[in-house]
């Protein structure tokens, strides 16, 4: 590099969904998925109230389709949203939610309200909010290079385990916990493979699908440890505070 020239910042290679050239920071990532989970003491009312609960949920999400129905677990999906109610936990998850998570937070508040009301849950043992960000790169190597440029971990040089190639899919994870709350942060390189062979009857109508996507994932889980009474918790408000914390405190990953 010639003298006086500034080093190149970590640059994401622009290919595919939501990619732009520029320095790597959280705003350049797409929101891949979000989930909210509540845990509670065993809610035996699920045996009596499952029908009423799901009927109430159906009023809010008319297109729910069952996935699992058994006495211990009821699981539905509606479009890109998945809703699960179990004896000791309930969760709502969304794939590709909007960036602000405004609508997902409102849905979560309504879902939690209905679950707490029908299963007579007054105390949550844990409330967790997880959001996964993804940034796609052209190749696995590009993704690994972008990850390495963050300087989160020190990769060993040279041949290791009799393998000359550089390590792939590196991962960095940290957890913070107090008596009351906790957060887990992971940053990793991920390669996602979709390989669907069409059944013989469908060959005429459906091409086989093979897609490989590599990228950097930032995966953040923010949760409570101390019990929370339902009257203390407004899920929409809590998630909004969580999103502010995530935006503020994950900045260090990118040198902020």
């Amino acid at each position, binding site marked *: 590099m010639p003298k006086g020239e500034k080093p190149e910042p970590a640059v994401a290679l622009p290919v595919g969904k939501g990619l732009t050239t520029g320095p790597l920071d959280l705003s350049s990532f797409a929101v891949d998925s979000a989930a909210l989970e509540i845990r509670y003491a065993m809610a035996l009312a699920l045996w009596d109230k499952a029908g009423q609960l799901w009927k109430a949920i159906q009023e809010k999400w008319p297109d729910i389709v069952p996935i699992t129905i058994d006495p211990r677990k009821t699981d539905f999906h509606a479009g890109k949203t998945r809703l699960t109610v179990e004896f000791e936990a309930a969760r709502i998850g969304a794939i590709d939610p909007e960036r602000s998570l405004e609508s997902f937070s409102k849905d979560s508040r309504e879902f939690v309200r209905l679950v707490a009301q029908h299963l007579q849950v007054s105390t949550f043992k844990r409330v967790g909010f997880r959001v996964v960000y993804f940034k796609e790169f052209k190749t696995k190597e590009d993704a690994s290079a972008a990850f390495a440029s963050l300087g989160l971990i020190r990769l060993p040089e040279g041949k290791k385990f009799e393998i000359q190639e550089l390590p792939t899919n590196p991962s960095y994870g940290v957890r913070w916990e107090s008596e009351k709350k906790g957060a887990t942060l992971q940053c990793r390189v991920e390669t996602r493979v979709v390989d669907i062979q069409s059944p013989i009857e469908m060959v005429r109508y459906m091409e086989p699908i093979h897609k490989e996507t590599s990228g950097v994932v930032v995966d953040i889980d923010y*949760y409570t440890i101390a019990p929370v*009474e339902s009257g203390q918790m407004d899920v929409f408000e809590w998630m909004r*505070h969580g999103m502010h914390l995530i935006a503020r405190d994950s900045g260090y990953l990118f040198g902020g």
Partner: protein
Amino acid sequence: MPLTGTGSVVVPIDTGVARFHLSQAGAHTPLPGTGFSKKEDLVGPSREVMVLDANGVVSFAHKVSNAPRLSQSDLYPVRHAFSPEHVTALRLLGLAVKRTERALRAMNDADEIAADIEVQKAQVLLPELFCCRSLGDGFGGVVNGLLSAFESLEGSPPNVLQLRTLNGVLSVLRDKPFLSSEEADEQLEQLEAVDLCLHPPELVKFLSSDENIGSSDENVR
């Protein structure tokens, strides 16, 4: 996760990022010595412990958490992320609780004038608190009940028991502003138990006039 061997084994399930739940079905690798398989969960760590007895029967026990309770400031730590109603309610409820506490202290010191002033200062916060009722039906119900309770005193200072109850209800509301209607009813019952009327005087008057109408109807018959 080591599950081999005999005798009672207690294995914490909190294994960091990868946390496991047990399920009998599924394509996961069965854990040795059990008919269960491990399955990665969606969100965060667990506070459960898995107990495997000598017969190989797996059961779950929940660790009783000694962690302190979460306060509103623990749950909602970012000042600029608050909704206007939430932050206003917390501010006003904090003031109301402090003022009723001061009133109680003044009463203990036999300073009834100071107590009355503090009670009046607490009362004037209620209309603005009522404007925050979008926080929930429970919140609106309790604030409405408190408004009527103060009005029902008709300017007289509350007695010590009433004041203590008012302070208690305000404290609960500060801690649990998103309380349900059922939880709100519990708080209102406490106010009623100390002879505070929870209905607006106009409604009480209207209902008593209904009784008069009813009785006059009977006289006509």
